[in-house]
């Protein structure tokens, strides 16, 4: 049985790296309405940063008009203070999600990515779901209990 939703927030922005800070701050501000601990806020900022960065760096890699490439972040709060965050892009998608989620796996050729993004998302949340269609895009859903 799923928990009743008590609050919702949605924000959409261009796939530009400057918006990474905006996205994690916006979600942190929404989460802060439930008064979680400082460390829970730090976890939320980190995982949002990972998923949004992936949308920008990998999802929309090779797309020309970045201001037309949109990343959307939807947050839902449940009655039991569980935060559900859905990060969505309409980019290239992922061929093999299982492989992509392995620690240190990266398709980056520049040598500047660690391949630890999904591992960080897994470690700092209570649940993660990744749905992706090559050529269509990717949806990452993260769940974090803010209070017991």
């Amino acid at each position, binding site marked *: 049985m799923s928990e009743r939703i008590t609050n919702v927030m949605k924000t959409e922005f261009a796939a530009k790296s400057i918006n990474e800070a905006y996205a994690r701050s916006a979600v942190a501000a929404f989460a802060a309405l439930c008064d979680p601990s400082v460390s829970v806020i730090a976890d939320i900022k980190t995982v949002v940063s990972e998923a949004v960065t992936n949308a920008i760096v990998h999802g929309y890699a090779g797309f020309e008009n970045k201001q037309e490439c949109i990343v959307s972040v939807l947050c839902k709060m449940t009655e039991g203070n569980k935060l559900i965050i859905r990060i969505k892009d309409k980019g290239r998608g992922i061929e093999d999600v299982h492989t992509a989620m392995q*620690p240190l796996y990266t398709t980056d050729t520049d040598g500047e990515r660690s391949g630890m*993004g999904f591992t960080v998302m897994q470690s700092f949340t209570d649940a993660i779901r990744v749905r992706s269609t090559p050529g269509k895009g990717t949806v990452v859903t993260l769940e974090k209990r803010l209070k017991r």
Partner: protein
Amino acid sequence: MEIGCKTEGNTTVAYILGEIDHHNAVTARAALDEMIEQLAPIRFGIDLSGVTFCDSSGLGLVMGRMRKCQTVGSSMFIKNPSAAAERMLAIAGMDRILKIERGK
């Protein structure tokens, strides 16, 4: 984010203040690589005590600079990582393969 460095003897220590995400890592990479190339110090440290936020882009930044230091023959270390930086290093097991100096 703010970056600078200080050289004492054979050691150059760079510092990064503020948030390390993918956006800032691009700037930090350029600044650190310039220091490494121009100074090619015997020891190159990155002081992470002033890092208030760090995601896995920070790990990529550190891993990339380790490789850069190898190309010029500098020995790299991390100095006083903040809690935010430390847990990123720990998640990748880098706290075991990297020299980390604490204190001072």
